[in-house]
């Protein structure tokens, strides 16, 4: 707000004015700059670093960026914490797997099946959402976990999913040195697309309704927000993106087993990444996935004992939820604001935080010192 600018005019050097005006001016500009730099870095990454282990981590990371952004698009915006994201991941993977198997699709043609993954995940999301979104908070979390395990059980036991043997993807006759690159760019495109979608939704009327539901769903309904419809729409969109993530992952790995298609660690990971980066923010899930997924992979590579990495993962989850649940982005953002405004605090300007400090009385006409009004005593 411009309230911060007025106290500065007393000592108005050019710099201080520029500083005061800066936050409003650069908030979006800075976001776009960071986005552009990140995108350029992401695009040139596999060209510069051709190590296959590194590019493989790159693919996984980009898939998790897309999944975390999509998860946040529903859970972060509405406050409904879903631990059933793997339902869509697995649905996407199995859908393209089963379709390729039954329609005898081989080689590169398999990628034509990707829209089917989004569609199937979206179709699954409708009854899932209609059941789970009837309840809130803890009950919602429990229902999503229950539905997740139903899907895992089905994958283990149905004939069509191949039971515990799973399903193999069509074989790709690509050169091993550059095998990862097309997957990397596919995942990157999906991640970037999901981020743009999240950005569009957040600023839209639709996104505002989601955030109103997060703050007070019943109040929002009383202002004409059709809560169920809006929540379900976000849930389906989120599920479709995660379904695509699952399909790309399946083609990349070449095989899906029930315990990896419907993996509880996937549920936890997307949630952890989003909470770590900043729940409900635009940058949070991106940052969280970019930091945590490579770290986790690196850890797995270094410590050959997989239990150790899961132990570290679980501990980190606890620490983040307990002490850092608002995420890196909001907390660091506050530090930066505190640092930038430290001079104003020292100058002791009462007006500087006018908006933040609740006034003693109502503003406007009611702000005159309250004299006993003419009303008769009670």
């Amino acid at each position, binding site marked *: 707000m411009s309230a911060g600018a007025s106290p500065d005019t007393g000592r108005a050097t050019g710099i201080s004015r520029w500083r005061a005006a800066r936050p409003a001016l650069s908030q979006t500009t800075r976001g776009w700059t960071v986005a552009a730099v990140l995108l350029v870095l992401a695009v040139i990454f596999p060209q510069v670093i051709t190590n296959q282990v590194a590019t493989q981590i790159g693919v996984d990371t980009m898939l998790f960026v897309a999944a975390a952004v999509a998860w946040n698009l529903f859970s972060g915006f509405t406050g409904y914490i879903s631990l059933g994201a793997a339902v869509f991941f697995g649905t996407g993977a199995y859908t393209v797997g089963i379709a390729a198997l039954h329609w005898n699709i081989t080689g590169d043609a398999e990628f034509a099946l990707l829209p089917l993954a989004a569609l199937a995940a979206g179709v699954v999301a409708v009854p899932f959402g209609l059941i789970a979104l009837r309840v809130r908070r803890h009950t919602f979390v429990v229902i999503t976990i229950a539905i997740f395990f139903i899907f895992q059980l089905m994958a283990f036991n149905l004939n069509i999913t191949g039971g515990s043997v799973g399903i193999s993807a069509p074989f790709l006759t690509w050169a091993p040195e550059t095998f990862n690159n097309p997957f990397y760019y596919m995942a990157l495109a999906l991640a970037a697309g999901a981020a743009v979608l999240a950005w569009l939704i957040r600023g839209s009327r639709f996104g*505002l309704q989601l955030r109103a539901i997060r703050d007070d769903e019943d*109040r929002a309904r009383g202002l004409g927000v059709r809560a169920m419809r809006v929540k379900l729409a976000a849930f389906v969109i989120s599920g479709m993106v995660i379904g695509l993530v699952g399909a790309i992952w399946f083609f990349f790995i070449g095989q899906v087993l029930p315990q990896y298609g419907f993996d509880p660690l996937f549920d936890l990971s997307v949630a952890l990444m989003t909470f770590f980066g900043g729940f409900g923010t635009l940058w949070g899930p991106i940052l969280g996935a970019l930091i945590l997924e490579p770290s986790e992979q690196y850890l797995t590579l270094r410590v050959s004992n997989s239990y150790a990495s899961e132990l570290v993962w679980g501990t980190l989850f606890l620490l983040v939820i307990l002490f850092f649940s608002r995420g890196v982005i909001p907390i660091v953002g506050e530090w930066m604001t505190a640092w930038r405004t430290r001079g104003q605090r020292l100058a002791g300007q009462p007006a500087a935080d006018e908006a933040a400090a609740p006034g003693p009385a109502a503003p406007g006409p009611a702000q005159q010192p309250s004299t006993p009004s003419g009303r008769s005593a009670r």
Partner: protein
Amino acid sequence: MSVLLRTQDVCKTFGGVQALADCSIEVEQGSIAGLIGPNGSGKTTLFNMITGYGRVDRGDVFLGDRKITNLPPDKVFGHGISRTFQLTRVFSRLTVMENMIVGAHYSERTQGVRRFRNPLARAGGPATRQRAMDLLEFTGIADHAGALAETLSYGQRKLLELSYVLMANPAIVLLDEPAGGINPTLIATIADRIRDLNAQGTTFLIVEHNMDFVMGLCDRVTVLDYGNAVVSGSPEVIRSDHRVLDAYLGTAEDDDES
């Protein structure tokens, strides 16, 4: 004058508690109606039944000639009934302006050719923002338009809630204790704003414990007791009605015994 809002023999029980028993009230178009009664007499329950926050067991609610019994809250709002809550509810992590735009979304949504509306349209067009600023000026919190609602004081939140329920041009506004927990100056301000809005054609139904506020503002007051509308009339009538004194102070028999 025609009746704008009417409940007819509305009944509601919670477990074994009869919250509303054949409760019938009427609010005339263009009036400021008051609803009073002791704690637990069913005032807020009646609000909830009218606005869709709960289903009536029996009975009907009418807005004009239209039956709106048991419609969900968003539909009730769409028909032109806005309400505030006893414990003020604003969207704490949205800015004041965003709070206002949430209130406008319904009317924005229903404007224009609905089939071709863009779901990703930016929230709040220029007309909406202008109307929001006008309303915030009107209630006196325009300076805080860019602040997060959680930074507002309790009184300011009351004003914000009053402001955003007006965004959709409601036919009738239900206020649940608009004068509760705020200072006398602000109470006077809110009373003035209600009078201004009423002069512009908005009908009000107000639940309030502050008798001076109710008696000074309302054209007609209805008294609830044990979920039943026991008496209804002008403030002068209500002041002197023995049934009201009974409801608030205990029955005459009780007095005799004491």
